[in-house]
């Protein structure tokens, strides 16, 4: 510290109000005290502030707020009566929330859906590798893969299939969001497995991958959408049964040569119109999910 006579410390006028209410940090408090010891003008100002504070505090002394017993019931009544306004999230937060919903739904989808799909794909793979003749491969892929996905779609959502439906319905996430999340998960999963399967079965250099994929992609989309919508409208068993029946009308004639009434083969191709129809059916399902009457 310097041994010359210290310069007069600056006046502390702006700190006095805080000094009086004891809200200064220790360093500033000491600084103010040191200054007040030597500056009469600031002492006078401090006295002024104290009088103002005293006048304010005495006028407030008589005020009493409504007691908790009085006020709390009114607060609860207000909270219960008014639904919370929807919270608008910024886009980044909305994406993060979407991600969390998807992860949560992954846990809620019944384990059997994942397991059954995987087993079915594995079965198809084994059959195709070891038992199918070349020309049968096309048929196997085109028929089996869409059916597997349609089965998953039938059991994806709904009280019969959903052990956690109450929890789902109790969250603020709308049914539509839940369904969207689950479909996204299932599609990603099944599509991934199907592509993997196809890649394994395609030639070693990957030739024919396009052709093989085209055998099942369109039918998978269409049949799954039908199955999902059917599941929402009439329940998973009906939906699955319907999908199977629909599919049998394709399968049997191929196997037995019998002629059955069936949808024209043009329905089961992979092309933009079919994919559009599948998308439209899916949107319908989404719309219906929210309006679906809740189970009693």
């Amino acid at each position, binding site marked *: 510290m310097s041994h010359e006579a210290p310069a007069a410390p600056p006046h502390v*006028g702006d700190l006095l109000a805080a000094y009086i209410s004891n809200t200064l*940090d220790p360093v500033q408090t000491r600084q103010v005290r040191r200054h007040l010891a030597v500056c009469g*003008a600031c002492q006078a100002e401090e006295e002024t502030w104290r009088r103002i504070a005293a006048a304010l505090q005495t006028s407030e002394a008589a005020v009493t707020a409504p007691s*908790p017993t009085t006020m709390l019931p009114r607060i609860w009544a207000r909270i219960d009566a008014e639904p919370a306004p929807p919270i608008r999230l910024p886009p980044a937060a909305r994406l993060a929330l979407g991600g969390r919903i998807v992860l949560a739904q992954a846990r809620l989808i019944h384990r059997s859906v994942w397991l059954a799909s995987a087993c079915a794909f594995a079965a198809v793979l084994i059959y195709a590798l070891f038992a199918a003749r070349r020309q049968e491969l096309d048929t196997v892929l085109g028929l089996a893969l869409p059916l597997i996905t349609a089965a998953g779609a039938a059991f994806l959502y709904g009280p019969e299939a959903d052990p956690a439906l109450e929890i789902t319905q109790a969250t603020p996430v709308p049914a539509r969001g839940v369904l969207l999340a689950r479909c996204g998960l299932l599609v990603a999963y099944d599509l991934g497995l199907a592509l993997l399967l196809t890649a394994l079965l395609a030639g070693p250099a990957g030739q024919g991958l396009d052709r093989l994929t085209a055998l099942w992609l369109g039918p998978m989309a269409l049949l799954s959408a039908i199955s999902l919508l059917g599941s929402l409208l009439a329940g998973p068993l009906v939906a699955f049964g319907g999908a199977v029946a629909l599919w049998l009308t394709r399968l049997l004639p191929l196997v037995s040569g019998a002629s059955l009434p069936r949808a024209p083969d043009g329905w089961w191709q992979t092309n933009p119109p079919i994919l559009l129809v599948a998308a439209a059916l899916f949107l319908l399902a989404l719309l219906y999910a929210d309006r679906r009457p809740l189970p009693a």
Partner: protein
Amino acid sequence: MDSLVSERRCGMGEGGAAGEIALVAQVAAGERLALAALYTLHHQAVFRYLLQLTPDRGLAEELLQDTFVAAWRGAGRFEGRSAVKTWLLGIARRQAHNALRGPSLLLDGDAALASQPATDPDPGDVVLAQAEQAQLAAALKRLPLIYREVLALAFIQELSSAEMAAVLGIPLGTVKSRLRNGKRALRDRLTPREELP
């Protein structure tokens, strides 16, 4: 930067402040008991503040209700960066502004007033020092809201300057100049008319 959580608050140490922040987290989780505890801790302070903003006791009670309902809804957004009391006072201020809808709460006429160098003592203070308490109290009640509010926060709520800045939504420097100008406005009201320059 001033810390917003003062240790001297209500005799609670750091543990108390952290405990209150935990209370708000419980409110966010939907625990009514936690909101009840917050009300018990802070209803006097919030009510006294609201009475500064409106002398109508009935309206102040309604605003008190509004404040805690809003605290219930907004607890999830509280990040613990300020003291819980500061947060509640800020909510109360917004509720009052919505209800009163007057320009007075947000009036920023400080720039229009001449400013002395920030720290030099004001010679006019002698008037204030000599005024009687009753006169002072009466003059305080007649101050414009913008000054009454900051003086009340400083000496009744005993907020630090940084906390006041947070509640009022103004820079720290503006808090200090508003206090200064409030003192000057008070002095002007006490000075007999003939003596004003």
